[in-house]
């Protein structure tokens, strides 16, 4: 009775949860954290580190430590987002043979889904350990604005990690599910999501199982970390004014400031003032210097005022795009840790004219919603039906490079639609069917999915031939496009399978690789356990020798100590065989000691 886990695969952090006994449980990672940093590190020894541990070695291994890979997934190398990211990250982003953005690590190119798969694999293992059962299925969330390619790339990442992705759902939809929406009520919900590094606002209309995305807006470079930075800057500036020492040059001091700033920010969510207490933060000729400053909530709010303000405009734009007034919104949901700050809650309340909901932990709410959808899949949840919808419109390029929609966004799939087209010039014998996806009215602003030609149209004046173009989407999101000349019956068709840029063969190969890397990890874990065992036997025996060894005759002491010395050499070995052999020696020493003590007794 396998579970379907819910995964919030975030830009900075991931969170996994699962439905257990009718309630959602957050799955902690191996280190005990409820969220896992979306960071992967490759060491020169061929190890793959994930999460907090990968983060810890980022400074020593910057070019092989990958973060925020979500910004690259399903994107072309020459897209604006990828080019912008290239300027800010220390790792190398390269163009793959099919134009996708890939990442070069230790002379090997990785597609973004492969990197995400490494994180997903770790999350899967944590869930398996938590549930004591194999996990093969998952629901993953993505931002509402992700197109088919980005969604498919996310799906592929799951596949590579050994997870069948039952559904890809929108993050705001998941948040709304966690709040219990989707139970036969018609409502409009605004989801305000201020995460670690990105800000998204989404307006949803929920009716009869369809969570329709009316509009989305946001800022991909605004997040909680900017808020921390404001406090750090303030502390540094205040300290410099008083002591003429610039703490920015001191890495340790900065690290301490960062932690203190984060703590102060969290505390100010519940109290009106907090004390930042950092003794011995620096020293000069006159003696040690300390920071002992009171930060009030109003000062903090003054520091971040403009950041908060900058989230207001996207909210208004989203309302405008959805053609709604603030009073049309039935509920506002807060997502992301930063929304705990009262200034955010207050601002959101002002914008939408109603109290925002934050009863559910905003760091976990998206993953919880995904787990609820997982429960729907297994039959544990019965009162919710979430229909699959097309995230973006599908259509054709027509005269003058205009885009004509055949299937509007948010249409529930599967479905089919046909539209009749005609020729532009006299005696035109062929038409090009260029299939695109997007919301822009200019075809070139949308994403091209493929094109084909219908040839052999009998010569006739323009506007006379009638060509029926049909779009049909099945439940798996596969689009069939056909064009038929009504007069001759000539037909031409094309199938578009959602693609992330990875071919099925490549995906299969990557799945294999991922599985072997899990084996390697297991081996590494085994090695550590063997080492620890050896270490503790040697230490315990030495301790016992120290206490009772004097009673033994010298020869015996020599033999035992000799064995222990030999064994101890391999405590740091990388060779399991050697460690095992050494462990035998150590055990032999322990046995001899015990035997000798027995004789003495």
């Amino acid at each position, binding site marked *: 009775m396998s579970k379907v886990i819910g995964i919030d695969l975030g830009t900075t952090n991931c969170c996994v949860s699962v439905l257990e*006994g009718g309630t959602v449980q957050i799955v902690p990672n191996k280190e005990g954290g409820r969220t896992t940093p979306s960071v992967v590190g490759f060491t020169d020894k061929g190890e793959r*580190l994930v999460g907090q541990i990968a983060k810890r070695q980022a*400074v*020593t291994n910057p070019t092989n430590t990958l973060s925020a890979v979500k910004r690259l997934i399903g994107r072309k190398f020459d897209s604006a987002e990828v080019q912008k990211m290239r300027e800010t990250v220390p790792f190398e982003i390269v163009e793959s043979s099919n134009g996708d953005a890939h990442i070069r690590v230790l002379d090997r190119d990785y597609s973004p889904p492969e990197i995400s798969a490494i994180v997903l694999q770790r999350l899967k293992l944590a869930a398996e350990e938590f549930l004591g059962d194999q996990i093969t299925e998952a629901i993953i969330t993505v931002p509402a604005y992700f197109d088919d390619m980005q969604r498919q790339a996310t799906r592929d990442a799951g596949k590579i990690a050994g997870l069948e992705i039952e559904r890809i759902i929108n993050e705001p939809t998941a948040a709304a599910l966690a709040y219990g929406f989707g139970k036969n009520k018609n409502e409009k919900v605004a989801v305000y999501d201020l995460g670690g590094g990105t800000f998204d606002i989404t307006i949803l209309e929920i009716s009869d199982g369809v969570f329709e995305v009316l509009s989305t807006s946001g800022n991909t470079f605004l997040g909680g970390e900017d808020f921390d930075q404001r406090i750090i800057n303030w502390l540094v500036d205040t300290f410099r004014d008083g002591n003429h020492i610039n703490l920015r040059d001191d890495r340790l*001091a900065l690290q301490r400031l960062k932690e203190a700033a984060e703590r102060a920010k969290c505390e100010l969510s519940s109290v009106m003032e907090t004390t930042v207490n950092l003794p011995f933060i620096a020293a000069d000729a006159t003696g040690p210097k300390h920071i002992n400053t009171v930060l009030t909530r109003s000062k903090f709010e003054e520091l971040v005022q403009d950041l908060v303000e900058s989230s207001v405009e996207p909210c208004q734009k989203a309302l405008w795009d959805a053609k709604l007034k603030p009073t049309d919104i039935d509920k506002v949901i807060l997502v992301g840790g930063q929304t705990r700050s009262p200034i955010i809650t207050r601002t959101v309340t002002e914008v939408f004219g109603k109290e925002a909901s934050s009863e559910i932990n905003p760091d976990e709410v998206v993953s919880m919603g995904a787990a609820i959808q997982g429960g729907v899949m297994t039959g*544990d949840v019965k009162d919710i039906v979430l229909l699959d919808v097309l995230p973006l419109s599908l259509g054709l390029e027509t005269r003058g490079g205009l885009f004509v929609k055949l299937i509007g966004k948010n249409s529930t799939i599967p479905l089919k639609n046909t539209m009749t087209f005609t020729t532009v010039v006299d005696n035109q014998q062929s038409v090009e069917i260029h299939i695109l996806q997007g919301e822009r009215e200019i075809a070139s602003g949308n994403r091209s999915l493929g094109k084909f030609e219908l040839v052999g149209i009998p010569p006739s004046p323009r506007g006379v031939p009638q060509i029926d173009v049909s779009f049909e989407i099945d439940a798996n999101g596969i689009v069939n496009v056909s064009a038929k000349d009504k007069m001759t019956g000539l037909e031409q068709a094309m199938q578009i399978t959602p693609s992330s840029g990875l071919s099925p063969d490549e995906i299969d190969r990557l799945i294999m690789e991922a599985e072997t890397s899990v084996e390697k990890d297991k081996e590494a874990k085994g090695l550590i356990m063997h080492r620890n065992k050896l270490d503790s036997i040697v230490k315990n025996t030495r301790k016992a020798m120290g206490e009772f060894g004097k009673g033994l005759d010298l020869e015996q002491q020599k033999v035992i100590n000799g064995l222990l010395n030999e064994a101890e050499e391999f405590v740091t070995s990388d060779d399991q065989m050697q460690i095992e052999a050494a462990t035998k020696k150590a055990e032999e020493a322990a046995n001899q000691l015990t035997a000798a003590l027995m004789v003495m007794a």
Partner: protein
Amino acid sequence: MDSNQDQENQDIFAVEIEDEGSDSIEDFIRQLEAREKDLHIPSDLSIEVGDADFDDTNPEFLKPELSVPQPAVAEPIRAGNFTPNGRSFSDLEDEVEALNQKLDQAEAERAELTSTMRRRQFDFDNFRKRIERERGETFLNQLSNLAIKMLPVIDNMDRALSFAENHSEGRSGDFLEFFRGIALVSQQLNELLAEMGIVPIVAVGQPFDPHFHEAVAVEAKADVAPNTVTSELLRGYRIGDKVIRAAMVRVAVAPQPQAVSDAPETAPTGE
């Protein structure tokens, strides 16, 4: 009962009833007389009254006669219009159908409940196992939670001591005594931690291991192997294999012309 036969009887009665209305009284009497013949008991037949089952109030052989007026209500007879307890056959069929549906529904409900129950049982078993497993860790977790809160205090104590140590030259004897006293308090604190199983993570001179160390800076150094921890900026602690706080360290990299060098330290921090 054979419905065809029933039909025949009915026809006969129907004729009789028709006759009743249209013919003369003589005819009627004649008919009655003819019927009386049917009632005639032949001489070779004797009636035994001794039979206990015999009911003389409504003798069996009189039944057809007695029931004559009843079917006279002349209702068209359909197959299946048999009516025990006054309910028609088709009503019963409907009822069977309804009962079958109810049964199916009940069975489906039962299957669903069983599956829900199994699922819950499964969840509960997992939950129980996990709680069992976690119970062992609870003590350690609480201890490390306490330690996480206490460590900054110990760090600051260390910073104070290290500062005093570096600036003790030319200080008065009183100060040095006071300093030694505080050093003893600090030692006491560290011993207390060790007693609880909380031990410092060895860092300096070790190969950098992100499982235990957090790199905050790198420095180019020729005299140590690359990837060796060169200095500890903040001590790390662990309980057994569980890291409470990773040691914040500086790590050596092979010196290169373009090597990233660490920013100059302005603070003499506890090392």
